[in-house]
């Protein structure tokens, strides 16, 4: 489904991601783990067309989407839940969801999808008319998730979704991720929460200094001694 080959990217003249290759297959949950500064977020930004790709290719469902404008990448069926959620704070929850399905194709299904999101995350129905900026962190994460799902993406990319969430909400979040996958959406997730993430991931990549240093099935990586020492502190 998603096939990234030898991707290089960075800011200005500084290269941060030095040729990363990564694959997401249909209906998979794929995790990217790594320390701060490993190039995870830069990789995602380049993938989503938010910064230019210097070298390498990104193919999605057989089509070359390298360096397309971000909204065009969204049209291909990839949406992102960005780091820090990035809601539209002075718009209502409902309007935030509306924007999630605002292209000519996605807009047709808007009302049906909105209803679906209210079913999946009932809290959002109560908050529908409230400004997104006034919500709690957990509720904001729900809005971000629902907004990204409004366009019925084939691939959902999540950048640090558990950021700032209470532990109980993190558990709920991971349940939501599994629900999303069971409904046919593949997930690419970056997380600090290495243990939980790898335990639900089909495949995992370890980033270090802008390179992939290790990859494997989530459960295998979890057992890897080096990784345990580096990230889990056990």
């Amino acid at each position, binding site marked *: 489904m998603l096939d990234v080959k030898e991707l290089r990217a960075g800011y200005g003249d500084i290269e941060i991601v030095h040729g990363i290759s990564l694959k997401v297959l249909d209906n998979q949950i794929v995790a990217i783990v790594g320390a701060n500064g490993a190039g995870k977020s830069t990789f995602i930004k380049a993938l989503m067309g938010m910064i230019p790709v210097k070298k390498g290719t990104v193919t999605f469902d057989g089509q070359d989407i390298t360096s397309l*404008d971000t909204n065009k990448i969204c049209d291909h069926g990839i949406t992102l839940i960005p780091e820090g959620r990035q809601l539209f704070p002075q718009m209502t929850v409902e309007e935030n969801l509306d924007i999630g*399905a*605002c292209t000519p194709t996605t807009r047709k299904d808007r009302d049906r999808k909105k209803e679906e999101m209210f079913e999946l995350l009932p809290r959002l129905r109560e908050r529908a008319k409230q400004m997104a900026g006034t919500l709690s962190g957990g509720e904001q994460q729900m809005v971000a998730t629902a907004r990204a799902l409004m366009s019925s993406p084939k691939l959902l990319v999540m950048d640090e979704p558990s950021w700032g969430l209470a532990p109980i909400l993190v558990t709920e979040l991971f349940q939501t991720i599994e629900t999303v996958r069971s409904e046919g959406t593949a997930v690419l997730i970056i997380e600090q929460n290495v243990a939980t993430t790898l335990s639900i991931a089909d495949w995992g990549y370890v980033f270090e200094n802008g390179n992939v240093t290790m990859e494997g099935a989530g459960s295998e990586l979890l057992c890897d001694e080096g990784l345990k020492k580096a990230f889990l502190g056990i």
Partner: protein
Amino acid sequence: MLDSVLLALIYGILQGGAYGAIALGLSVIFGVTRVTNFAHGAMLMLSTFLYYELFTRFGIDPYIGILLVTPVLYLLGMATQKFLITPLLKKERGTTQDPASLLLITLGLGYAISNLFMMIYGSDYKTIPTAASRSYLTVEIGDFLFTTQWSRVIAFLAAFIIGFALWFIINKTELGKKIRAVSQNRDAAAICGVDVYKTYAVAFGLGIAAVAVAGACLSEYYFVQPQVGTLFGTKSFLIVVLGGLGSIPGAILGGLIFGIVESVGAQFITSSASSMLTFILFMIMLFIRPSGLLGKGGKV
């Protein structure tokens, strides 16, 4: 004395409305694109010359001319964004440079338009002798007598009409939803599938269309001349900062305050010194409330 101050206050309010009408477009453009359009005044001036030509060649009153000039200026605004600003934005995407070139390009465009019109029309002051500019409103209460051109009253009302139209588009339409989303978080809007650059172009077009409407009202009582743009352009910046960048009511409120200070101030000191008052007011504002009276952090 009291009468003359009261008169100055009324004239100030009327002129302030016109200032607000002109500043509205600038505020919306900044609120959405984060670009300070230094060509705003020049585009206002350009529109007044179009009204002038329509009137002298075809006898079309500027109020009717709005129907022709506004769509043209809308397209001009869109083109400015699309062909001048967006290419620069794309170039700077993913760099850490400060986008100084964005400021300079609209400044350059403004000078280019002003000088082009100077070349074509020279620096003569022209007027458009329409019916409205020659009909007067007179209010008499006891000894108090107040007279003004109807066209000034219309220019004042135009601020509220343009303001309402912009508010309606931004807050009550699907297009407006996208405009607000882009204004509040450009990257997030893009990942939701909003074509950010197209939205910028539309917002820029709307802002310039708004100034075209204001231009029609202005040309009904003010002279038409290539340097007019600089004067109103500069005032618009001060007004928008005073009222709050990106805020629609802020632009009108800022315009009113500006007009009142200028007009009432001139009762006590010379009118050039009263212009200075408005600049001082502006600087004080920057210190005590940099986001402006009704600002929401520069968002529409």
